[in-house]
């Protein structure tokens, strides 16, 4: 078994967040791939979210009325191990740096 954290995707061209409208599943529920998890409201539309996995809902990270930022956890699933899955790099929304500056005159 493995854990899969489903993060809120950017649902339409640069949106920053979405508000949870309602859940159709609860923590502990077994869900199928594409089963309707719930609805979120973006600046543009109300959007139905289908389950990205078959598995058990371990944690729901926001309640109706709460705002979730894109890239933040929405639902955590317990899933069967998925061998051979190529990791997907999530959207790098934060500007992380690796370059450090040397002031003029420093070694």
């Amino acid at each position, binding site marked *: 078994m493995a854990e899969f954290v489903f993060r809120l995707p950017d649902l339409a061209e*640069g949106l920053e967040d979405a508000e949870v409208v309602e859940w159709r599943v609860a923590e502990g529920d077994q869900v199928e791939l594409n089963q309707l998890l719930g609805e979120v409201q973006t*600046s543009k539309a109300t959007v139905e979210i289908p389950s990205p996995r078959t598995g058990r809902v371990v944690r729901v990270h926001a309640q109706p009325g709460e705002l979730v930022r894109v890239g933040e956890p929405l639902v955590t699933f317990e899933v069967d191990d998925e061998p051979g899955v190529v990791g997907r790099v999530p959207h790098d929304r934060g500007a992380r740096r690796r*370059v450090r*500056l040397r*002031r003029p005159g420093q070694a």
Partner: protein
Amino acid sequence: MVQALNAALRQCLRDDPRTLVFGEDVGRLGGVFRVTDGLQDEFGARVFDTPLAESGIVGIAIGLAMAGWRPVPEIQFDGFSFPALDQVLTNLAKYRGRSRGAYDMAVTLRVPSFGGISGPEHHSESPETLYAHTAGLKVVSPSGPQEAFHLLVQAVEEPDPVIFLEPKSRYWAREEVSMTPSPLPVGKARIVRSGDDATLVAWGAMVRRCLEVAAAAEEDGVSLEVLDLRWLVPMDDETLVESVSRTGRAVVVHEAPRTGGMGAEVSARLMELAFRKLRAPVQRVTGWDVPYPAASAEHEYIPSLDRILLAVQRVLDE
């Protein structure tokens, strides 16, 4: 920023009954980014949807301006502004001249611009150089919500054609906006963060990126000044030269491809006007000389924190 733009348009439509807002999906839908949301309900026939034809949109704007209206048309995305380029370059930019001043071309062309939204092809272009290189146009880009309000009201009031490039990646940015007249005249840049060691010059979405760079540099004891050019045409040489004369170092940041980008124009002006104050050659951090890539490669194309910091290091090291 969407609400600030909406408020600006609402104010313009209210204050001047000759103002018109039109384009694809701007009326009933309120715009694909909701910038014109609710305007048709309030202002009726002065806000309308057009057929799918960018050249048509700009062409009729020219005619409407000749008939004494104040058109504020929208092109839905930067990458779709090109069918209208002929109308912009051949006519919008030249009509005042061609008519010896008989006609104002009081047209403000709103264009959602630039990248950083994982957009489909043609939805993330930086066309500012094409417009800046065309005599007769004014070109401006707001960096955030307050700027968007001030600059759009100001642009619409201009008797000259203004290309208004809205950074889509900043559409959902939030800040307090006061709905007052712009404190700065047309063509004025703004120092958005003061510093001593180098000046970062940017516009549009890259202003915020440069502020992130300045915050990171501060951690390393380097003090960076960030200059929001705002108006590409007319460009504020005075503020640019004053800042770079003080810091002695300049890094220009833009999303558009390097070759022939506005970074080259800024560099040339600094060389002409502040050569002896420069302690290092001007650096440019830009998009690469490739067509805007697909979403998955976007983060390697748009000037990143690290790339800009490396350029800052280069000017510090001279």
